[in-house]
Structures are given as C-alpha cells and as structure tokens.
C-alpha cells in the first residue's frame, strides 16, 4: 500500500486510497486527458475509472493492487488535449412553474426577478465537465456565481426525467426519474440518455451546452 500525497502537477498527480477498492487521483485541469490516457491501456486490475470534479476515481478489481504499469501511466507526461468533439447542443427548457418548483426561491436568493434569473441561466455557454449521479447526467461547468446554491437539505424522493437543476456550482439535467437533491428550475423534453443508442449519452464530457427558454 502506498499513498502519494505530493502536490498535484501535470507531470505527476497525487493519489491516495480512499477505500479498499478505490484510488483517488488528483488531476485538476487534466482530468479528461488523464482519463483518456488511462482507459486506453485496458489495465486488467482496473474495473472502472470515473472522472469527477478535478479528480479521477479508479475502481480496482477485488484483491488487485497498484501495478507498475498503472503507476507508470499515472506519472507519464500527458500529450495534448483529449479527443472530445466539443459539440454544441441547444436544449429547449420550460423554466419555472410546475416544471421548476425551486425557481422562485432561488431567484429571490439571487436578488433577481424570475425573468432576470432565467436570462442569467440561459445566457451562458456551458461545458460538460463529467457525467455522474445517473446514467448520462451532465455536470455543466460555467454557472454564474450569483446562481450557485447548495443542494437541498433532504433529497426529494422523486425528480422528473428532464428536470433542469442546480447543485452547488453546477447546473445539470436529470436523464431519468428518481430521487435527487438538486434544486429544480425547469424541464426539457430532450432525451439525455438512451441505452439503445450507439452513443447512449447525449452530452459527453467536453461538449458545450446552451439552454433556450421556451
């Protein structure tokens, strides 16, 4: 067992075990590039790799450890940017009302009327930082600071599929119905995730998103 807690840098990210099968690697701005480099190696000890907020989470097969190949790949210098398409998606959104029950309280908190709040949310071109929480759920980077808001204290037991929501410094879209703790401001009919599609997730890390009020 070994933890490497040196300060992260592009050439040598820090890592540490955070559970008996989970290794957290601090990757900062290079998360998607490092992900692409590691996943292409198909290392037998790795069950899955999950990109998140400035870090990668490596899930090991039970009983497997950090091999020399993986250690080398973690410290290898990165060449260039990841091959993401950067596709721009326009997502039509019905803001407020039944579709966005938390919008009035969030607008008041931000010191805006509903129309100004909607304009503020829809004025930004977001980028997909990573997918998580549910299949295809995009964590969209670029939310104006004035709209940042903590998640709900107790998650809702059911949030409708297509709900456009805010959690902390991210905005996102719930692909499927289920429990959720983010604040709901609107709804879209776009199909965010379809397991039968060749590319199941509509929005991929590195893609760009613009919300269009309906």
């Amino acid at each position, binding site marked *: 067992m070994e933890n490497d807690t040196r300060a992260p840098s592009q050439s040598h990210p820090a890592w540490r075990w955070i*559970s008996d099968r989970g290794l957290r690697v601090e990757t900062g701005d290079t998360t998607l590039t490092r992900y692409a480099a590691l996943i292409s190696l198909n290392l037998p000890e790795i*069950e*899955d790799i999950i990109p998140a907020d400035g870090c990668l989470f490596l899930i090991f097969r039970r009983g497997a450890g950090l091999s020399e190949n993986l250690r080398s790949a973690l410290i290898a210098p990165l060449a260039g940017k990841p091959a993401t398409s950067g596709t721009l998606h326009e997502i039509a959104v019905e803001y407020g009302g039944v579709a966005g029950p938390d919008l009035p309280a969030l607008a008041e908190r931000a010191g805006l009327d509903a129309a100004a709040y909607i304009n503020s949310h829809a004025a930004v071109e977001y980028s997909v930082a990573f997918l998580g929480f*549910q299949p295809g759920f995009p964590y969209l980077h670029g939310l104006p600071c004035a709209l940042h808001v903590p*998640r709900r204290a107790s998650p809702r037991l059911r949030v409708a599929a297509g709900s456009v929501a805010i959690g902390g410094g991210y905005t996102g879209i719930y692909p499927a119905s289920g429990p959720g703790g983010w604040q709901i401001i609107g709804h879209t009919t776009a199909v965010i995730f379809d397991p039968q599609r060749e590319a199941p*997730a509509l929005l991929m890390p590195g893609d760009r998103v613009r919300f269009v009020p309906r």
Partner: protein
Amino acid sequence: MIEVLRAGLCDRVMDQGRPGRGALGVPVGGVADPAALAAANRLVGNDAAAAGLEITLKGPGLRFPLGGVVALTGARFAATRSSGASVVWGETLVLAAGETLNLERAEAGSRCWLALRGGLAVPLVMGSRSTFLPAGFGGYRGRALRAGDVLASSATAGAVRLLRARVPAIERDAPLRVVAGPQVGQFDDAGLLAFFAGNYRVEAASDRRGLRLGGPAVTHARAELPSQGVLPGAVQVPPDGRPIVLGWDGPVTGGYPVIAGVIAADMAKLAQLRPGDAVRFATIELERARSLATEQWEIEELT
C-alpha cells in the same frame, strides 16, 4: 424456459454487471453478491457470467414448461415444488417438464439467486444482461418480472452433473466492517461518535440504490463537497445527518461527504440486510481490508 405465474416483490434478471461505463454515469450494477450467482451458475453447468434471477424478500411462482436444471443460492426462502420434492439451497435441482417452483418469503436475510441451465437469454444492453431499474434498462424489458412474462434460456450441451456448493459463512450479527471515508475530517466529534458507536436500523425506503439508515444523526462540520467518484458500500451523509449506504445501483459520483466505506469482503453481508435490521459499524485498517481473501464457494459432487 420459465413462465412467471406470480411475480415476487422485485425479481430481476442479473449477471455480473457492466463495468467500464462509469464515465457515462453508468454503475457496474449487476448481482448484489457476484460470488453467490457465480456459484449457482456452476451448480447448473453454466459459465459463471451467465444471467440468473435476483429475488428479494418475497419470491415468485415459476413454471418450467420444458423442465429445467436450476440452483438457488443466498438467503433461504420458504419454497415448494409441485412435484413435492424438497427445495434444497446450494444444490443442483432437476425439475420435470411442467413442474412449478414456488418461492415465498425469505426466512432470514433478503436476497437469493436462481440460476437456470443455459442462462437467461435476455438481450445485452451496454454489454450486460443486468436489470438497471433506476433508468429502466437491461434485464427483462428494463423492469422487474410480472405474471405472464416468459424467460427464454439458451441451449446447453453436455451431461448434467449433480453438485453441491459449500457456502461461505456470513456472521449475521457481526458489525459491518468499514474503512474510514475520504471526508471523515468533515464531521464533528459528536457526528463521528454517533456513527462509529451508534446503533442504526435499515429503513423501509431502502433499495439497490442505497440503504437508508435510521438512528443517531451524524452531524457535519462542513456538509458541501465537490462531486467525486463513489463505490457501492460508501456511506454518504446528506446535510440532514441521516446516513445512506450506497448500493449496487447507486450513483457513480456523489456530492455528500463519505464518512466510511463498507469493505469489499462485507458487501455480501450488506446484500442480505432488510428493512428493520440492526446495523453497527466497526472500523478496520485499509491495509487489513485489502489483504482479506475472497470468500470461496467450493463445489463438490453430490453422492
């Protein structure tokens, strides 16, 4: 082939899951106790990766129009066969054409697994036959079984061998072993004491996404967190202080502080918890957790 005469509480087709898709937000999912389904598969002569049924708390009534070779592992359920023969867990069972297998309530524990010789032939979705209910895909039409469903199985060559599995013991009353979580520093002393010394109960609103625990509130010093990758077994604490142990169909990322993680060796025990069960936690060192051997299911000939 299986005809579902009567559905159980939540009968789902499962295999060993769909690893490698975490970046799409898709968890590995799959059978809650991979070794138990693998053993059931070996008892009927299947590849360990074949799809079977995961049966929870109350089982289904199943008819085998063409007969079949089946095996059950995991929690024991009250069960009968229309032939009158006894239903033995952990052994190869040969059912006659038209025979029915009736599974009632779990006698202890929560889940059992049924393998059918040939494996259940449902379509592969994203590389797996496992049902993923939170998004409604995989398994049999993306859902739990209903009365009237018909499950096909693949043809298998070779002679049927009658086998028995020696089941690794699960110490049911022992605490769940955990390693300290990555955000253990975000909890105050009262919160840490509450969690690591407290007695909890599994709440009714628990499923394969997560086990919700009732008991002493786990108070935070700081509740917000950037989203991070998480594993089944991670114990998340939302701002309301009520811990949730993430399950097999839980999210791949989470934004609530993780106070502890159930070790891989105790996930099979987690799979057998049911609403109302008492839960305590005991910490062990990470190095020790990683050195624990995988429990072995030994398969032997029935004599």
